[in-house]
C-alpha cells in the first residue's frame, strides 16, 4: 500500500504544474481607430455591487465598420470577463465581443444593427455575474 501512495504522490508532483506556453497563433489583429473615424456613441462604466471599475467606452464608425474601444479602463479581477454589446442593462440580449482586454479594439460584426444596442456590459461568463454597465449616449 505504501508503494501505491508513494508512486501516486510522485505522479501528482510531476504532473501538477500547469504548463502554459506562448500564444503562437493570435486572434485576428484588430485595426486601430484612425483619426478619420467618427465617434458615434460613448458611455462611462458603473460597477455592480462589490466591484470597482474606472473608465468608459467609445464606439467609432469607419469604412462601414463599427469599432468599440475601452478608454482609461480598469476593473476588479474576475474570471472569464467578456465584453457584451447589449440591448438591456442586464445580459439577456447581447453580442458577445469576446474576452476583456482593455488594450483591444473590438470589431463589431457587420450584421449587428448598432442602434438597437444601448449598453456595453462587462460580464463574467463562467459564473454569469455582471461586473459593470455603461449606458451609451449618442454623440
Amino acid at each position, binding site marked *: *500500500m505504501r*508503494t*501505491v501512495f*508513494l*508512486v*501516486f504522490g*510522485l*505522479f*501528482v508532483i*510531476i*504532473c*501538477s504544474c*500547469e*504548463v*502554459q*506556453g*506562448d*500564444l*503562437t*497563433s*493570435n*486572434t*485576428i489583429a484588430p485595426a486601430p481607430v484612425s483619426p478619420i473615424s467618427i465617434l458615434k456613441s460613448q458611455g462611462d462604466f458603473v460597477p455592480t455591487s462589490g466591484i470597482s471599475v474606472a473608465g468608459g467606452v467609445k464606439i467609432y464608425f469607419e469604412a462601414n465598420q463599427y469599432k468599440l474601444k475601452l478608454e482609461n479602463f480598469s476593473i476588479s479581477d474576475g474570471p*472569464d470577463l*467578456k465584453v457584451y454589446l447589449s440591448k438591456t442593462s442586464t*445580459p*439577456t*440580449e*447581447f*453580442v*458577445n*465581443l*469576446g*474576452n476583456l*482586454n482593455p488594450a483591444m479594439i473590438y470589431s463589431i*460584426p457587420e450584421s449587428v444593427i448598432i442602434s438597437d444596442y444601448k449598453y456595453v456590459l462587462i460580464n463574467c*461568463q*463562467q459564473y454569469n455575474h455582471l461586473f459593470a454597465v455603461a449606458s451609451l449616449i449618442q454623440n
Partner: protein
Amino acid sequence: MKKIFFIVSFALIVNFSFAQGCSDAGLCSINHAFQSNEKEFRNTIEVAAILGAGESDVKYFSPYISYTKRFNEHYSFTSKVAFSAAKGSFGTKSQFGDAYLIGNYTFKEKNKKQWSTLVGLKFPFNSSNLKINGYSLPMDYQSSLGTMDLFLGTNLHYKKWDFNGAVQIPVINSNKNSYFKEYSGPDDFPSTNLFERKPDALLRATYSIKTTNNKFTIKPNLLFIYHLGEDSFENIFGKRETIAGSDGLTINGNLITAYDINKQNGIELSLATPFVVREVRPDGLTRSFVAGILYKYSF
C-alpha cells in the same frame, strides 16, 4: 525499492521525453476496467503514456495513473487520474484532465461465457476553458470536456473473444469554454462557446492471441463509437446553435500487444487509428493516430 525506482523512472521518462498530450473522453479506455483475468493479486497499479495526433497540427501527450482494488472474485473498483498536454499552432497547454471512479462486477463463468458489468463516473478537473495569455482556446487544446459523465457498460468474454458495450452520458455540464471561430485567426476549429456535448455509445470486439510461452498477448480490436446527437454551443448573439454533422459514427482499429514480464509486472503497447470519423468533430477528441505504452504492477 527496485520496483518503486522502476515505476518512478518510467513516470519521469514518459513525462520528460514527450511534451504533448491528449484528452480522453473515457469511453475508449474503460475496457481495462472489464479485465478480470488477474486473480492472484488484489491490487493493480497502472501507469500509462499516450501520444496522439489530433486535428490540424495539434499533438497530444496524456499520461494517466490508475489503481484497481479487487475485493473478491466478483467485485473490483478502479480509480484513475488523467493528465493532458496539447501542443499546436496556438501554443502549448497542459493540465490535469479528469478523475474516474469505476466499479466492476464479474459474474461466474458458465459454458465458457463470462459476463461482467461496470458503472462509473468521470469528474472533470476544470471547466474546459483553459486559455493562453488570456486568449480562449478550442476544445482541441482543453484537457477535459468539462462534464461529469456516467458510464454504464457490459462485457462478454467468450473463449478468445471479448465484446464490450457501453454508454457515456454527460450528467452535469460544467463546460465554460469560450472559443469563438469568429474572433480567432486560424479557421481550423469550430466555435465551442459554452459547449454542450451529447452522449456516446460504444461497441468493441477484441480477439486475444497468446504465444505458446504465454508471455505475449496480441489483442486486435475494432471499436465503434456512435455520438448520439448533435453537440451545441452558444453563438456570439447568446443563442444556442447545434453543430451540424457533429453526431454519427467513428470506427477505430486498435492493436494491443501485452507482455508479461512476470506474474506481477506487465507492459502493454497500444496503437490505434480511426477508419471512419464524424463529419464535424468539435469536442477535440478525434485523433488521426494514437500510440500508448502502459506499465502494470500487481501486488
